[in-house]
C-alpha cells in the first residue's frame, strides 16, 4: 500500500526539521550538554523520525524522503547510541605523565617481546661482525660506518670546525621526522600479525649490534657510548615502544582465543595505540634535539664522561618515568582515560 506522501510529509516535516536543528547544534559543538528535558525531546524526535522511516520503507518506494530520513536517523543514532567517549578537557601533562606510562605498563608483555627481538638482532649483528668483519659494508646502511672506527674517531676528534654549524635545527627536524616515520611504519606492520614489526626490530637490532661490536673491537668504546647514549637511550626505546604498539595491534587481530569479536577487540585497543604512538613521537622529538645539538660533538669539545653521564641519567629517568609515573600510592592506577579499556592483553 502506498501512503499519501504529500499528507505524510506535511504532517511529519516539523519533527524532522526540529531533529535536524538539534543534530546540527550537537555536531557543531560536541561539548554541548543537553538538559534532561532537551534530551527527552531529542529522544522523542529520534523515535518519531525512526517510525517515519519505517513507514516509508514499508509503504512507499519514494526514494528522496527515504534517503533523507535514513541520513537523519543515522546521525541521530550516532549521537544517541554513541561511544562512551565524553568530551574532555585537553590535558597534555596529565596524558603524558599518567596515561602514557600507564598504557605502556598495561601492555608490558608486548614490550618485553619487542625488546627481546631487538636484543636477539643485536646479538646476531655483533656475532656476524666478529665472524666476518667485511660484511659490514653490506650490513650497515650508512656509508660513514663502513670505514675503520678508529680512523673516524681520530678524524672527528681532530675536527676544528663545527660541521653542523648553521644546520643543527634542520638536522634535528630531519631526525625527528625520519624516526617518527620509521616508528609509525614499525607500528603499522603489526597488521602482519606482528611478524613485520618483529622483523623491523630484529633488523634495527642487527645494525645496532654490528656497529657496537665494530667500535668495541676497535677499542673505541668510550667514543661509541659518548656518541650513542645521549640520544640512543631515548630513541631506541621509542622504536621498541612503537613495536610494542604494533604487537598490541597484532594481539587484537589474532585474538588468542578470546571470546569477544575482532571488531570489539580492535575497538578496545584503539585508544591505547594512539597513546603509545603519540608518546613515541614525543620521545623522538627529544631524541632528535639531543642528537643534533649534543651527540655529534665529541672530545675535546665535550668530554666523553659528560656525554656518557648525561645518557645514563636520561636512561634512569626514562626507566623511572615508564615504571613509576602515573602510579598512586599502593600501586593503584589513576582514573583511566575515557578511551582506555580495562582489558589487559599484555
Amino acid at each position, binding site marked *: *500500500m*502506498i501512503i*499519501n*506522501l*504529500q*499528507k505524510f*510529509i506535511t504532517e511529519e516535516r516539523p519533527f524532522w526539521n526540529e531533529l535536524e536543528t538539534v543534530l546540527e547544534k550537537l*555536531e557543531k559543538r560536541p561539548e554541548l550538554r543537553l538538559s534532561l528535558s532537551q534530551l527527552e525531546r531529542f529522544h522523542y524526535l529520534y*523515535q518519531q523520525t*525512526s*517510525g517515519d*522511516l*519505517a513507514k516509508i*520503507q*514499508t*509503504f*512507499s*518506494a*519514494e*526514494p*528522496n*524522503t527515504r*534517503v533523507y530520513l*535514513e*541520513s537523519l*536517523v*543515522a546521525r541521530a*543514532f*550516532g*549521537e544517541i*547510541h*554513541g*561511544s562512551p*567517549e565524553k568530551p574532555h578537557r585537553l590535558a597534555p601533562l596529565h596524558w603524558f605523565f599518567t596515561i602514557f606510562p600507564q598504557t605502556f605498563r598495561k601492555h608490558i608483555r608486548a614490550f618485553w617481546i619487542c625488546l627481546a627481538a631487538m636484543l636477539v638482532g643485536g646479538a646476531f649483528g655483533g656475532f656476524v661482525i666478529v665472524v666476518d668483519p667485511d660484511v659490514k659494508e653490506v650490513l650497515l646502511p650508512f656509508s660513514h660506518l663502513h670505514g675503520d672506527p678508529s680512523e673516524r674517531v681520530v678524524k672527528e676528534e681532530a675536527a676544528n670546525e663545527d660541521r653542523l654549524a*648553521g*644546520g*643543527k*635545527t*634542520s638536522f634535528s*627536524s*630531519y631526525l*625527528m*621526522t625520519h624516526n*617518527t*616515520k620509521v616508528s*609509525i*611504519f614499525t*607500528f*603499522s*606492520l603489526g*597488521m602482519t600479525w606482528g611478524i613485520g614489526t618483529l622483523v623491523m626490530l630484529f633488523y634495527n637490532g642487527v645494525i645496532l649490534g654490528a656497529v657496537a661490536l665494530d667500535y668495541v673491537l676497535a677499542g673505541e668504546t668510550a667514543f661509541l657510548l659518548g656518541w650513542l647514549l645521549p640520544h640512543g637511550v631515548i630513541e631506541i626505546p621509542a622504536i621498541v615502544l612503537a613495536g610494542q604498539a604494533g604487537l598490541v595491534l597484532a594481539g587484537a587481530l589474532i585474538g588468542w582465543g578470546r571470546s569477544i569479536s575482532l*571488531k570489539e577487540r*580492535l*575497538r578496545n585497543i*584503539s*585508544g591505547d*595505540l*594512539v597513546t603509545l*604512538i603519540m608518546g613515541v613521537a614525543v620521545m623522538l622529538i627529544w631524541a632528535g634535539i639531543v642528537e643534533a645539538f649534543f651527540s655529534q660533538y665529541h672530545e675535546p669539545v665535550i668530554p666523553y664522561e659528560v656525554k656518557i653521564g648525561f645518557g645514563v641519567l636520561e636512561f634512569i629517568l626514562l626507566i623511572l618515568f615508564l615504571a613509576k609515573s602515573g602510579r598512586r600510592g599502593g600501586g593503584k592506577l589513576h582514573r583511566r582515560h575515557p*578511551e582506555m579499556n580495562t582489558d589487559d592483553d599484555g
Partner: protein
Amino acid sequence: MDKINALTISTPEGIEFSRKLAGPVTRFLAWSVDLLAIMAINKLLNVLLGVLGLISRDIAMAATVLGYFIVSIGYGIVTEWHWRGQTLGKRLLRLRVTDVRGLQLRFSQIVIRNLLRFVDSLPVFYLVGGLACLINRRAQRLGDFVANTIVVWSPPVDEPDLDQLLEGKYNSFRKYPHLEARLRHQVSPAEAQIALQALVRRDEFGPQDRIQLFQSIVNYFKSIITFPQEATDSISDEQYIRNLVDALYRPKSTGSMS
C-alpha cells in the same frame, strides 16, 4: 565472504538504515584531490616560512621539514575530525568516514586510520589499500579495518518532479476511485518504484526499447488490477503508466511532494 555495496545497520528500536559503501576508484579520486590540497598547503607554507629564512636559513629549513611532515600526516586527521569524517576530497565526492556500527567517530579511530596509510600506500599509489578495499566485503582498506571505520557515499538523489512529470494530462483512472484505492493497496513499493523510474528515465531508452518496456510494465500492472476498457482504450502504454503513478503517488492529485 560476499562483497556488499551497502552496509545496513539495525537500531535497537528495530529500524534499519543503510549506507552506500564507497568503492576504491571514488576513494582514489578523493585522495587525489586531498593530495593536491596537501601540496597547495605545503607550497603556501614554504612561501610563509621563506620569511623566516631572512632571520635564519637553518630555522626556516627545519620549519619546512617539520611543516611538510605535520601537514602530510595531520591533514587527514584534522579535516576528518573537524568535518566529522570528511576531507576536502571526500566532501567534493560526497564521501564520509563513519563508524562501522553507525556510531560517532572517535578521535582514536581517525588517528589510527590515518597512521595506517603508511602501510596502505605501499608500494605505490595505495596498491595495498586498494587491494584490501577490493577484497574486503565492506570495502575497507587496512586502516579502516583496524579503526573499525567505513567510507560511505551519499549520492545525490534525483528528485522526480511529479508535478512536471504528470502535468497537463488527463487521468482517465480518476473516474474509478475504488479501483485506484485497490491499486494502492495491492501494489508494493518496489513495483510502484518501477513505474515511477520508467517515467523518470524514459528519455534514456531507444524508441523501440521504450515501447517494449512500457508495454511490459503495463501488462504486469494489468495482471494486478484491470481498469475498464473505456479508461484504457484510447491511451498509450506510457500514458497508462503516467496515470498509474499519478494514482499511486498523488492520491488527491494536488500540490507537490514536499
